[in-house]
Structures are given as structure tokens and as C-alpha cells.
């Protein structure tokens, strides 16, 4: 060889600054093991799609291609299929939103809607406010556009309005450009709390007074276990809120159909941004969802999902109560997919993950849900996918892992005084 030096990537010095964090990571390596069936994965938020009427969906999809292939296999509009957008408005009506289909932009899951919104609003260094903790997929997008994420505390009632107001004031005094507040007010991921009605009004009022746009991300809103759906914040503020919705949890994530409901000026930019990104979305997926909404008992299906997830939530909470070591605390979700667990003082969920994988149980360490690297003492547990017996077994294994970690830290004297071993 003429040059013995190899760097294996000739473009290593040419990547953009936003690619700086795209590195191989041991944590990601561990997640590749977590997907194996031998591991009880309490990590991923995978909906239990086998509960769908798969025969009916299959027949519907087949007919769409057979009977209307010239449309379903063709390009579509950047804003999305008009019939689907009408169906989306019917879905949102369940949460008190009265919208016009013309205000809806269909996206590749709500994840793309969030990406497009960040693209059209954020210059490097702009500030985004987000709950502490916040959805990891959102934080990843924000990082890729080099936003400066500032967290606002939550408690059991969701985002703390006083903290929001104080943060806005502080950032304004520092001359920071705050572009929007990103929030998951209902069945929060990962926090598993829901913003109370009173606080919803207060948060909207604070945002309105500050001229701050609210991004309401609501993938779990219809997956409540008790009573009627919570009223969406968008229902009370058409101009100040961009609402993000998704069929990933209420139908199936493999369809990749979500949407944004936005004031018209933002909508126009979203459509242009969507066309720039993907020209148009999958016509087939959109029409499958449209026909599913038109011909299948979709509200009954959501009810079935809710019952199934409530049973699994109960299995997880019961198992946590029965087996978690002293010092652990966790949320009791009223809907959605997750429990947010705080470890006893001194324990680090990320450092403990390899041991958990060895014990054949997986979770998501808390640090991924914070832009500032905090959250080491938290983990997200998901109950949506494993059967109840597997959930109980997974929690039992996890309790053993935590206990072993406590004993190890106690031996090395790294537990704080209030740590329990």
C-alpha cells in the first residue's frame, strides 16, 4: 500500500456540525440485544398491533391496490389526501377540536411534522422550551437543527406554569430568541403525567401573553384508561397552537401516517417543507387509513387498545409495588404507554443497563430524555407490548438488577447517605 494510514472515512472532516453527535454508542449497541425475544423489553414503545383486525386491514389494502391502483400507487399532493384530512378532523373532534380539513397537513408520522416545524422555525442557537423530561425523538430533531433546548420542570400535574413563566422571563432578559414551547400534555412520554385542565388554561395564557407558539404533541390522547378523552389545548387556541397527531398508536406505526393542524401561515410553510422533503407522502398508506376510518369500527378498536393497555399498566404497577427495592418511585399513568421510574439515590440507569441486559430485561435510561445530560437516576418503562406475565417477569428481573447495583455501589461507598442498600 502506498499510504499506510487509513481513517476509513475519507469525508470525516466534511460532515456538518449537526452530524457531530452521530457516533457509535454502547447504549445503542445494548438496544440491539434488547430486541431479542429472550429479553423482556420494557424499552420500546411498540403498539400491540396484533390486536388489530389484520384480516380486514389486509383485505382493505388489497382492494385499494386492485380496484384503485392508479391512484394508490401514484404521487399525491404535498398536503395529503383530502378525504383522509376529513377523517382526521373527525378523530380530532373527539378531543374537542373543530378544524377544517384545509388546516391539516398529512406527514410521515407526527415525527416528520415535528421535523418540518423545527426546520421552518429554528436557526442554530434558537431556544426551544420543553418539559423536563421530554420525548427523546423530539430532542433528537431539535439537536439536529442545533437548537438550544431549555427544560421547564414538570410535577404530577404536568408542566409547572410558574416555572414556564419564570423561564420565559429569564430567557427574554438574557436576549434569547425563544421560538416555541414543545409539550406532550396528555399521557406524557416519558413522564406519564397529564397536564390538568386548570394548568392547560394557564399555560395557554402564558404563551399567548409571551407571543410564544405551543407545539402540542398528542399521540396518546385517545389512549386514556378512565373516562372521556382530555380536551386538547388546540381546542382552546386555534392561533397559538400547532397540534400534532398520529395514527401510529391508534391504528399502526408501520403505516407512518401522522399530521399537523396548524394556523394557515404555518400550514403553507409546512406544505412547502413537506414537498421539499418527500414530494408527497405514501398514497397507499394514506388511503389505507382513510378507508379504515370510513369502513372499520375504529373507535371500538381504540377502546379495545385502551382495555388491553390498561390491563398491562395494572400488571406493571402491581409488579413494581410487589418487587421494587425501597427508594424507587414511579408514576401511575392514566393512559399512554409508559411508567417513569426514579431510582434510589446514587444509581445511574445508563450505567446499570448492561447488567440489566445480562439479567435479560431492558428499559430506556433517563438521560436520553434530557437535552442537558441530566436524568441519570430515571428510567422509562414501557408496558404496551409485552403480555402481562412477561411484564411481571421483566419487573421482577429489573428489581434484582437494581438491588445488585445498590449492593455494588454500597460496597464501593458511592451511595449517598440516604441511599438504601
Amino acid at each position: 500500500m502506498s499510504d499506510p494510514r487509513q481513517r476509513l472515512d475519507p469525508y470525516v472532516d466534511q460532515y456538518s456540525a449537526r452530524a457531530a453527535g452521530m457516533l457509535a454508542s454502547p447504549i445503542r449497541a445494548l438496544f440491539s440485544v434488547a430486541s431479542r425475544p429472550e429479553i423482556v423489553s420494557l424499552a420500546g414503545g411498540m403498539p400491540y398491533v396484533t390486536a388489530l383486525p389484520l384480516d380486514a386491514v389486509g383485505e382493505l389494502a388489497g382492494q385499494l391496490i386492485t380496484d384503485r391502483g392508479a391512484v394508490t400507487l401514484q404521487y399525491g399532493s404535498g398536503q395529503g389526501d383530502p378525504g383522509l384530512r376529513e377523517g382526521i378532523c373527525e378523530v380530532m373532534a373527539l378531543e374537542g377540536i373543530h378544524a377544517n380539513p384545509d388546516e391539516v397537513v398529512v406527514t410521515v408520522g407526527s415525527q416528520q411534522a415535528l421535523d418540518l416545524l423545527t426546520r421552518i422555525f429554528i436557526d442554530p442557537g434558537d431556544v426551544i422550551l420543553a418539559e423536563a423530561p421530554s420525548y427523546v425523538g423530539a430532542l433528537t430533531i431539535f439537536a439536529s437543527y442545533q437548537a438550544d433546548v431549555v427544560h421547564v420542570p414538570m410535577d404530577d400535574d404536568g408542566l409547572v406554569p410558574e416555572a414556564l413563566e419564570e423561564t420565559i422571563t429569564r430567557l427574554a432578559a438574557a436576549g434569547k430568541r425563544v421560538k416555541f414551547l414543545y409539550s406532550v400534555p396528555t399521557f406524557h412520554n416519558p413522564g406519564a403525567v397529564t397536564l390538568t385542565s386548570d394548568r392547560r388554561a394557564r399555560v395557554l395564557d402564558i404563551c399567548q401573553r409571551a407571543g410564544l407558539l405551543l407545539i402540542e404533541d398528542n399521540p396518546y390522547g385517545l389512549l386514556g384508561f378512565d373516562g372521556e378523552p382530555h380536551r386538547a389545548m388546540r381546542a382552546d387556541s386555534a392561533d397559538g397552537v400547532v397540534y400534532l397527531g398520529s395514527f401510529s398508536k391508534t391504528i399502526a406505526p408501520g403505516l407512518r401516517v401522522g399530521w399537523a393542524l396548524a394556523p394557515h401561515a404555518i400550514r403553507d410553510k409546512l406544505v412547502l417543507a413537506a414537498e421539499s422533503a418527500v414530494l408527497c407522502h405514501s398514497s397507499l398508506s394514506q388511503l389505507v387509513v382513510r378507508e379504515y376510518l370510513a369502513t372499520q369500527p375504529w373507535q371500538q378498536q381504540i377502546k379495545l387498545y385502551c382495555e388491553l393497555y390498561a390491563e398491562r399498566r395494572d400488571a406493571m404497577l402491581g409488579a413494581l409495588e410487589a418487587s421494587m427495592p425501597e427508594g424507587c418511585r414511579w408514576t401511575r399513568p392514566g393512559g399512554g404507554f409508559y411508567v417513569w421510574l426514579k431510582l434510589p439515590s446514587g444509581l445511574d440507569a445508563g450505567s446499570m443497563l448492561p447488567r440489566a441486559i445480562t439479567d435479560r430485561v431492558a428499559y430506556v435510561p433517563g438521560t436520553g430524555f434530557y437535552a442537558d445530560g441530566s436524568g441519570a437516576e430515571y428510567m422509562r418503562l414501557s408496558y404496551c407490548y409485552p403480555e402481562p406475565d412477561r411484564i411481571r417477569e421483566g419487573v421482577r428481573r429489573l428489581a434484582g438488577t437494581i438491588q445488585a447495583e445498590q449492593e455494588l455501589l454500597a460496597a464501593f461507598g458511592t451511595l449517598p447517605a440516604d441511599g438504601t442498600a
Partner: protein
Amino acid sequence: MTSELTAGHPRTELSHVLVLAGGLSPERVVSLRSGDRITGALRETGVDATAADADAALLPLLTTDPPSAVFPAIHGNSGEDGAIREVLGLLGVPYVGSTADACRLAFDKPVAKALVAAAGLTTPASVTLRRETFHDLGAAAVLDRIVARLGLPLFVKPARGGSALGAAPVHTPADLPAAMIGCFAYGDTALVERFISGTEIAVGVIDLGDGPQPLPAVEIVPTSGWFDYTARYTAGRTAYYTPARLPVEVARAAAAAAVTAHTALGLRDLSRSDLIVGLSGQVFFLEANVAPGMTDTSTLPMALEAAGHDFGGLCRDLLIQAADRGA
């Protein structure tokens, strides 16, 4: 370059072969990449190769449609501790690489260090301790003794495992507890070595029937200063020099050390020894690998290329050799 095996030795016709990749260790994703690369390279040479995981479907697959030979590319536990190879032996399926007995010795770093030291190689001074020891005797006192005995800096790593997972350099006594805890996340036994400053190299050894032959040493220069998981598997984060920039006599000593380790551990077909050339030119043995990484950023494929081997052809020849040898 045509390998020695293809140059005239009798050869078995391969019907189809299996590349084992995946497993349940933290190195699963690395193994899958190694397996993909081996499988693809074999197919390019015309071999009917399939990748398979080490799961409940494996034994039925091996018994209903036995392959001519298996290429194990599972890293970490079960792949390198001999377990999978023991099962292949039970089933009478030929495989590339070292026997289960040899793997058990080589995969356990403290055992491997003792064996190669007995064969005349130098390894960094070290202690090996199980986590229970710290519970039973009190960590602070034991850690103090480690520092007093070995000095600083140190290098802490799990006694079994690879890809630098759970491994960390330690420069001050205050860093040692965290390094030990990080290590014990990946295993119950820790190897604490005196840190050797110098040039980090990897030396592959290939045996195609004419005895173990060393490959050119690959010098490893991570941009961050230490060869952790990210530096290993993010292309561009480490510069590699093949052959290593070593004086001729040091390069010879390193090659000889790799062959000695291969032989002393009873290894077969292929191995990779990780070595450090100290500032005085002395070669230190760190560890041996019985299922070396074969990813796009792994050192063994670089060494093979530098030596003029065709990667797919070499994998094929190793499989033919295994099939000839039988179970």
C-alpha cells in the same frame, strides 16, 4: 494473492455454509456487522453462505440441513467462551476457528495472560478480582492495595468480553471506584492492569495448514486518545496504520508475540492479539481474540488486505479447511 490452500492442497467442495452472527452479548450489533461482511464476501466468491443467529432456531437448522462448515462470528459470551463451538462439536458440524477448550482459555483474559506469560511473553502487571471480594473485604482497602501494588495509571476491564465495553483508563485513585463499577456492569470479574504507555497494535494470525503466520501489525491511533467503543466503530474516529510504524526488529517481535500467543493458547485457524509496544520498544501482550471483529472498522480485515489476501477467498479457504478437518 492466492492463499496457500488454493495452491494445490486437496479441497472439499462446499455445499453451503453458515455464518453465525448475533448472540446475546453487548457485542451483538458488532457481531451482526462482522457476519454480514463475511457472508457477503463469501457470496462474492461463489459460496452459498447464509447468516444465522444463535437462537432456538439454530439447532433444528443445523440438524435438518447440515452445512459443510460453520464460520462463527459471534463476539463476546457464547461466541468466544467456547459454548457455541461445544454445541457445534456435539452436533458433528465442522467450524472455522479454535476449539471450545482453547476458547475458554483465551476468552478469560487473566487465564490467557498467565498462559502466554508462561510461554515467555510479557504482559502488564495486574490483579484479578471478583465483585464479591469488594463486598466481603471492603472496597476502599482493596482499592488502596491495588494502587499501592500496581501504581498509576491503571487500566480496568472485564475479565471476559470485548469491544472495550466496561473498560476504562484510571489516572487518579478517585477515578478507580467508578471504573470498577463500570466494569462490573459487564461482568463479575475485573482485570486491573498497570497502564502501559506506547503504541497500540493488533496482530492477526492466520493458519491455512502450514502453521500460524502473522499478518502485518495494524497500529491504532484513536483521535480521542483512547480506543473505546465509539472510536472502534465510528469510521473516521481512529486512524490505522498498516503496517504499523515500528522499527523492523520491534515489528518482528510483535509478530512473533502474536504467533506465540496463538500457539500457547492452542488456537486454530485465525486469531488476533492485541499488544502494546512500550516506549522502550518492549512488546506487551494484552489479550487474544478467537472471533476477531470483521466489520468495516475492524483491524483483521485491514491486515488481510495489507498482506494481499482476498477477504472472501480467505474466509472460503478457512471453511474448506474446517470441512476437510471435520468436526
